[in-house]
């Protein structure tokens, strides 16, 4: 209707409970949705990994393994750009900068590696976290399926010095 709006080819909004078996389910859903944009095997694998990290974090950290928590996963496809948002209404993150550091984890006793955010950041082109302590966390990430490595859609293979 309005001009200049971003062309949105498809979307999904999914609500699932915070159960660990839904980690695999969320990956299947996103992979099936993304398939419309003809990603490569590597691209789809990266996206599945990033989604798995975000949903697992909502379950373990956001809801501290309480399965009555609710996770919202939404995805939009505009041309070959996939954007994914994972929302929980859990405990939230006090210090997002610290949380994003590689190897930082607040739950070493659960053998968390502290690599979740690092993987999301490295496997996707765009990545952001917004969190309010006591209210929840929203992770937004995007990937353009153009055959290039993540994080550098304009200059494939060009990042290394």
């Amino acid at each position, binding site marked *: 209707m309005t001009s200049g709006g971003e062309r949105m080819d498809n979307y999904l909004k999914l609500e699932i409970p915070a159960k*660990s*078996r839904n*980690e*695999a389910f969320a*990956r299947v859903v996103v992979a099936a949705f993304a398939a419309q944009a003809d990603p490569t095997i*590597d691209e789809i*694998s990266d996206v*599945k*990994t990033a989604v*798995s*990290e975000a949903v*697992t974090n909502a*379950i*373990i950290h956001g809801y501290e393994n309480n399965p009555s928590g609710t996770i919202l996963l939404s995805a939009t496809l505009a041309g070959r750009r996939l954007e994914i948002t994972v929302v929980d209404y859990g405990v939230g993150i006090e210090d997002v900068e610290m949380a994003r550091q590689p190897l930082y984890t607040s739950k070493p006793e*659960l*053998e*968390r*590696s*502290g*690599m*979740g955010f*690092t*993987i999301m950041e*490295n496997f996707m082109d765009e990545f952001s976290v917004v969190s309010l302590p006591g209210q929840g966390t929203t992770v937004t990430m995007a990937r353009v399926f153009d055959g290039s490595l993540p994080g550098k859609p304009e200059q494939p293979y060009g990042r290394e010095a």
Partner: protein
Amino acid sequence: MQVRIRAKGETLVVQMRGELDHHAATGLRMEIDAKLAENKIKNVLFNFRDVDFMDSSGFGMILGRYKAVREKGGKVLACSLRPPVRRVFELGGLTSRIPVFGTEQEALDDLWGGEDG
């Protein structure tokens, strides 16, 4: 994920099939630790031949076993990594701690060669 765990001498061979995520890692961790508590087991070899997906939770489970086994003087090895699994191994620097082999036999040969020498 489906798992088959066998003892080969002092080494526990963990053969996995499917996706190694938090859900799968939680169950597998307990299974391995129960076996590790048993008698003569010293080392653990993770065979990734049929694993097409691993995320940081799988990574954390492998790293956790590495720490536990090393404390008791044993070794953790991995073999047959497919590209998506290798990617996560490398991003997390796991390849610098855990020797990775092309096949299960190469990994076992390396262990047994080490024992002889």
